[in-house]
């Protein structure tokens, strides 16, 4: 299966969703309409922090055209003292995130919702809802939230015996760091801060929900997991999962933030109360104020190195912003930051800090880019001061198969060293760089690496042969990274038929077995695995049918190039039977042909990335531009190379935005000041060079095609690589992101 001369695997086949997307026909959640459908609108908190003393909805309900009003009273309450988990999400926080209960914890948090016969009436009705707020002092930044006299968001949260905004901690430890630092020839300790960033998907959250009189609920929505939508909606509405059918719409980006829900339970309750289908679509403003983001960080990292480049000890302390409700991704920086390296002594500590911001959501390798930023810049400085090549040092210290990671796992067939060696030997690393092409322009080069866990998990697939001898493949997770195109390639390869004869679909929760959400760089890995096993079962059925027709033993039948053939001369002499011929005889020879597989997939090795970047700094304006970028990851096997490259490039670009221009800005009242794509500055195409993606193909021995997940690791090194390149250009170290022009110029002129 891993031969490079595969006919379909590794081909840049036309994507199954391509025509619909470029012609505007792809069915996104906001495109859905139904007879009798009405519109839902959310009333959001105008305060960053306030007790909700009461809500009077009478005037809104009396407005002509209003069909239903819901508040937290309509959403299942999960008491604060008892955790109820769904995956990594705690329903105590989710129920309050979809509808504020005791308190409004951030500006923009939902407080009530209205469904009415038009969007305008629903919005007008929201304005008639009277909420009795007791406004409280608010706190936005980590350093303020952890001060002794900070406003406390949740009285029940205790840290070291006292009420605190520190909602949780996490520690990974190996060896003895003090003993380790004592062996070092050079120890560097630096502090860092970064701002929250938004996932920035083009498609705002949207859903249409129909709740019928007999209590059956159908949800059309944009998510990274229809089964997650079903389970979370069930928990938050009390409706059993068997009565909820979640239909995944085409998704316009998620990057992790659509692994939780915002609108669906609210729309369900509005639909239940009104008896009408309800549609809800967020505005961009709502997306910025109340969904995502990824956390900001305050961190201190200390690393000790010997003169020969051996890293002897590392200590990281990472404070992450959770938003108004607990749950920042501590396992990102705590577990990943030191994981590329075999270091004898590591202490990695994380603190989950609540403040009056939107609750964070997953974003591409959640939390890990932050830790990589801190650790990889300290390593760069150690290399600079010890006169060592930064890639050689990474190679010298690389974690090997069989090493025990600081987070506890023992590494399998990891390929960090191959990834880094590929960059050391890449022409980019050796290319001359004119460091001062003009009096006010300085150029520099930086490198960095990163680690992400990757995941396997539950997936299901059904492969059916149509009566006319073609193929449908159904899987159970939304396609954000080319899983349909990749699984079509796998199926075509295994069946030995033309790619155009295969249709790949995403099933809804009633039509395909449970499949975990699209996240953790898992879906291509897991889909290919279940599709392979399903297709192999189908091939077994096809051989059996041929054997029955030929009246020979099924063992004596081969499946080759889309046809059943006698395995050898002893098996008998029969003309081959094609898939079409076997399909035509399916019913008389035993019934429909098709097979499904449901698995908890295992064997997903972690992802590593190493990047090289050249930047250009305008020293008079403080502007940093990326002029060349090369990013390497091991894909194991690129089922569809364009998508592998796309994942790597996408991760790189998001890292560039994080490093240079993206940040949430708040005014003094705790209100986000830049809730639009104009002032929340994601990179645009003209800001970027072509990103060269180098995808190695060292097969993962635990996967039928050798696949390793590639979706997330590409975002890890960019923050540090860019900061290191800026240092190389201007000779100053930057510890605060983003490297916005005013910030850069202030440091240059200091």
């Amino acid at each position: 299966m891993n031969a490079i001369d595969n006919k379909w695997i590794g081909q840049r086949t036309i994507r199954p969703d391509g025509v619909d997307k470029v012609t505007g026909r792809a069915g996104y959640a906001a495109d859905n309409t139904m007879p009798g459908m009405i519109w839902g609108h959310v009333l959001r908190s105008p305060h960053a922090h306030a007790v909700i003393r009461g809500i009077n909805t009478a005037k809104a309900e009396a407005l002509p055209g209003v069909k239903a009003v819901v508040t937290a009273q309509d959403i299942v309450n999960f008491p604060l003292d008892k955790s109820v988990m769904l995956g990594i999400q705690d329903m105590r926080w989710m129920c309050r995130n979809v509808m504020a209960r005791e308190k409004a914890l951030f500006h923009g948090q939902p407080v009530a919702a209205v469904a009415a016969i038009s969007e305008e009436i629903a919005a007008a009705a929201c304005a008639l809802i009277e909420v009795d707020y007791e406004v409280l002092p608010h706190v936005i930044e980590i350093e303020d939230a952890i001060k002794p006299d900070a406003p406390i968001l949740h009285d029940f949260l205790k840290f070291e015996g006292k009420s605190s905004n520190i909602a949780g901690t996490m520690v990974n430890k190996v060896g003895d760091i003090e003993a380790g630092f004592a062996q070092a020839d050079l120890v560097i300790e630096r502090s860092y801060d970064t701002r929250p960033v938004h996932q920035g998907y083009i498609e705002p959250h949207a859903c249409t929900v129909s709740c019928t009189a007999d209590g059956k609920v159908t949800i059309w929505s944009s998510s990274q997991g229809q089964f997650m939508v079903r389970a979370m909606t069930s928990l938050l509405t009390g409706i059993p999962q068997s009565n909820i059918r979640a239909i995944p719409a085409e998704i316009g980006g998620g990057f992790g933030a659509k692994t939780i829900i915002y609108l669906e339970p609210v729309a369900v309750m509005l639909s239940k109360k009104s008896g009408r289908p309800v549609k809800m679509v967020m505005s961009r403003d709502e997306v910025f104020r109340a969904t995502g983001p990824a956390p900001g960080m305050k961190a201190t990292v200390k690393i000790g190195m010997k003169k020969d480049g051996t890293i002897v000890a590392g200590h990281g302390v990472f404070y992450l912003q959770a938003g108004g409700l607990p749950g920042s991704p501590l396992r990102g920086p705590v577990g990943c930051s030191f994981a590329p390296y075999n270091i004898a002594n590591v202490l990695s500590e994380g603190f989950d800090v609540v403040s009056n911001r939107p609750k964070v959501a997953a974003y591409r390798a959640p939390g890990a880019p932050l830790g990589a930023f801190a650790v990889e810049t300290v390593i760069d400085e150690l290399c600079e001061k010890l006169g060592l090549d930064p890639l050689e040092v990474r190679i010298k210290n690389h974690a090997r198969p069989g090493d025990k990671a600081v987070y506890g796992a023992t590494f399998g067939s990891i390929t960090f060293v191959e990834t880094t060696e590929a960059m050391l030997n890449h022409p980019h690393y050796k290319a001359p760089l004119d460091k001062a092409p003009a009096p006010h322009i300085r150029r520099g080069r930086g490198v960095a690496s990163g680690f992400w866990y990757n995941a396997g998990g539950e997936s299901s697939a059904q492969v059916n042969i149509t009566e006319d001898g073609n193929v449908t493949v159904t899987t159970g997770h939304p396609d954000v990274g080319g899983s349909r195109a990749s699984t079509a390639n796998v199926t075509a390869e295994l069946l030995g038929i033309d790619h155009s004869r295969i249709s790949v679909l995403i099933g809804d929760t009633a039509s395909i077995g449970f499949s975990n959400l699209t996240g953790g760089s898992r879906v291509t890995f897991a889909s290919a695995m279940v599709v392979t096993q399903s297709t192999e079962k189908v091939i077994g059925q096809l051989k059996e049918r041929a054997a029955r027709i030929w009246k020979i033993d099924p063992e004596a039948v081969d499946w080759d190039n889309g046809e059943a053939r006698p395995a050898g001369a002893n098996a008998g002499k029969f003309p081959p039977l094609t898939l079409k011929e076997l399909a035509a005889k399916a019913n008389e020879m035993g019934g429909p042909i098709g097979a499904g597989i449901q698995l908890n997939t295992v064997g997903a090795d972690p992802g590593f990335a190493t990047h090289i970047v050249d930047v250009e700094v305008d020293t008079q304006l403080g502007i940093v531009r990326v002029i060349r970028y090369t990013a390497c990851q091991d894909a194991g096997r690129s089922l569809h190379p364009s998508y592998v490259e796309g994942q790597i490039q996408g991760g790189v670009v998001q890292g560039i935005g994080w490093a240079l221009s993206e940040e949430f800005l708040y005014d003094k009242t705790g209100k986000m000041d830049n809730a639009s794509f104009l002032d929340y500055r994601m990179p645009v195409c003209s800001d970027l060079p072509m990103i060269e993606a180098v995808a190695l193909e060292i097969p993962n021995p635990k996967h039928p095609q050798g696949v390793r997940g590639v979706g997330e690791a590409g975002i890890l090194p960019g923050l540090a690589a860019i900061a290191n390149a800026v240092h190389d250009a201007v000779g100053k170290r930057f510890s605060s992101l983003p490297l916005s022009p005013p910030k850069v110029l202030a440091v240059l002129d200091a």
Partner: protein
Amino acid sequence: MTDIRYLAPQTLDEAVGAFAAAQGAARILAGGTDLLVQMRNGVARPGTIIDIKKIAELTSIEETADGGFRIGAAVSGAVLAEHPRFGTVWPGVLEAINLIGSTQVQGRASPGGNLCHGSPAADSVPAMVAAGAVLTIQGPNGRRTLPVEQFPVGPGRNSLAPGEILVSFSLPARPKGSGDAYLRMIPRTEMDIAVVGVGVSLTLENGVCTAARVGLGAVAPTVKLVADAATALVGTKLDDAALEAAAAACRAACKPIDDKRGTIEYRIKVSGVLLKRTVAIAAERAGRA
């Protein structure tokens, strides 16, 4: 939903009549790239919209007998870019207008709208100020003219009297050896709002600057004509000392604020940097060897 009356008069008189009659409840629609966004955000809720794009004088570009240009206030950036001569005579004004919004927005957005919207960061305005554009304005009391730099009076506010409509920009004829340029600082490379914008127009005779005008944007409540910067340039060969003096004049003219787009300190510094760079481009266009 509130009803909105939409009018698309064929003549300026009709437009002025309807605009005055609405007594402040109407808004003028040129490209709509600001107005429609404001309406969508709920910032503007006009009872009447008066579309001026059916009025010939508002959508035409004319080369005047004296060698200048008259540009209708509602001419879009894309149409202006297609004019065979305008961009060669006033490249700085054109490049400033063509920086408004995206390629798609350029098909609609107009210099008149950009000016009337009243943003201190409007890209076309510093270039128009540098060019010495004179506005033609028509209202219930007839026509008047006004130098462009006198038009804005504060963020979002201008000196139009009730019922008055901006009709056109008149740009003077260019003496030989003239050039103009506009530069802005934005963190990205496009799709952004100027943190500082500088327009420069100048004339060179034998390498000596004989005339100059400098417009400065995004550093004060309104776009500024910086006369001191022009004075520092005139009579010099645009040597380093003259440039530094002009840059200092720009810095001194700044009355910026700290906001989400830039800090006071940053804007002041950058105004001087951009002045020097913009002068260099304008001088090159003026034919400096």
